[in-house]
């Protein structure tokens, strides 16, 4: 998993840290290599940082969806037994029961890639290839009328997708957000 780095490299660092730290600890963190980090870092930021190589289209995504997703999320994302993924646009305001789906509620398209890759399918998370995740992301965006039938989704195009509900989130916490 993680490789140990020679102490020769760590020693000068330790001196710097010891002079800087007042209430610090024993400095027992081991340096992580770029390869170590790449193996674990599966976070995708809303501006697209972290997206891997690969791509997929709605048509390719339909195959992935039927095989891995439909049993929990229904035909074409209609939901049941688990979350509905498609529809609901226009249902958020007012006192009616809101239909919160990827299309009606999710503010960033990058979140679909991030979440599907790390958590789905429930019985075998992290089993899909990057191409498959891109494809199923494209399929969900297309079912929600957000991209066209032939639009390919990749690291360039995904962060440029504007989600319908993106401007309806107000940060309660006052700190830098996108």
């Amino acid at each position: 998993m993680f490789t140990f780095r020679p102490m020769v490299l760590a020693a000068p660092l330790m001196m710097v840290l010891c002079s800087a730290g007042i209430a610090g600890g024993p400095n027992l963190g081991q340096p992580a290599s770029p390869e170590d980090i790449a193996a674990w870092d599966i976070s995708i930021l809303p501006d697209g940082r972290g997206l891997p190589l690969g791509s997929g289209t709605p048509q390719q995504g339909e195959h992935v969806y039927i095989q891995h997703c439909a049993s929990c999320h229904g035909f074409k994302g209609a939901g049941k037994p688990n979350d509905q993924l498609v529809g609901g646009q226009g249902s958020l305001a007012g006192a009616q029961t809101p239909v919160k789906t990827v299309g009606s509620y999710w503010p960033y398209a990058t979140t679909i890639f991030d979440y599907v890759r790390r958590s789905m399918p429930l019985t075998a998370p992290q089993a899909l290839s990057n191409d498959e995740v891109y494809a199923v992301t494209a399929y969900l965006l297309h079912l929600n009328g957000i991209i066209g039938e032939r639009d390919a989704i990749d690291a360039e195009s995904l962060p440029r997708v504007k989600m319908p509900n993106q401007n309806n989130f107000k940060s309660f916490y006052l700190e830098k957000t996108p």
Partner: protein
Amino acid sequence: MIRRSHPPAGPEDFGAAGGLLSRRIFLRSGVFAGALGSPAFAEPLTVPPWMTAPGSPFTSYGQPSRYEAKVVRIITNPAAPGTGASRTPHHRLNGVVTPNGLHFERSHNGVPDIDPDGHRLLIHGMVKRALVFTMDALARYPMETRQAFIECGGNSAALYAKEPVEGDVQQLHGLVSCAEWTGVKLSILLDEAGLDPSARWVLAEGADAAAMSRSVPLAKAMDDAMVALYQNGERVRPSNGYPMRLLLPGYEGNMQVKWLRRLKITDIPVMTKDETSKYTLLMDNGESLQFFFPMEAKSIITHPSPGLSLKGPGLYEVAGLAWSGNGKVARVDVSADGGASWAPAVLQEPVLPKSLTRFRIAWQWDGRGTTLQSRAVDDKGYVQPTRAKQIAERGSRAIYHFNAIAGWAIAPTGEVKHVYV
């Protein structure tokens, strides 16, 4: 039930209408005078069988008495087992610390079975040095101990419903628990990695099958966040994050990532599924409140409560739990007349910040139907709102962060039922 020195004598003994008694009552001493009528003699006292034969031998890990078999979590497993929650039976507990086996649980794809020797914590991103920590390494860091409640952002969500949902304290409010946590201050580890000046957020990720992740403000991470290794003195339980969890005192439980394996320092939030599609508060105008982190001041009456009926008129103790994710509980007021008058309850010392606080007040029930409710005020001056105020501000579809005043109706029969006040 409390034992009191004498029955209330005059108006000065009452703290509010409806029979709530002044806090001064507790200060008196003496012998209970039996003023509510001469009781019949107790049943004859005999030598019980457990005194006439040896008891059981020692055990390697203790369990509650077999007579306490009802004191258990209730479990909700929706469509997929391991994606639901279990709830703390506060109506069967007292004090403020939740036993480890009864701490509420919430997970998104089951509880992982983590071998601590194979577990690593990675800190990377906008730092000078990306670092990996083993459990053995963390064990050598300076530790601190603090008490903190953890409340699920969705606790009490049923109270957003238009009509009161029938349920007891556990069903309605059981997604909050309190423990003594011991671990390493996160700021020590982040300082060791060396923060980039433009760093603002920390993405925390778990080693479970959901790889649950949330963005945490760096300011919180550097303030009172902890990498918790111990829960009430023993290693954190598997369902609460073994071998380590992120503790963010006062913040919604979902952010206090269990099975912590990775912290990525960033300039902006990652916008994970659980901070966008979930844990955001949809209001009636169609806008949603996002990054609503602290659990605001709240209180619940645990005794009496549904399932704990009153046994006829007389003297009772009204007790409950109060907390604030923004600081200490400064005051809890209790009303026994539907909110017309309020009396301050006694707070059990020590009152600790971002921890559960036990409150108690004596109550002379006259046997008539009424409503009990409690209202917490924290040391920032925040007053627990009425349900009407909360619904007016947020609508009834917010799902998360319900913290308004709740009511228990007391029927003349002594039965207790959830009502809106």
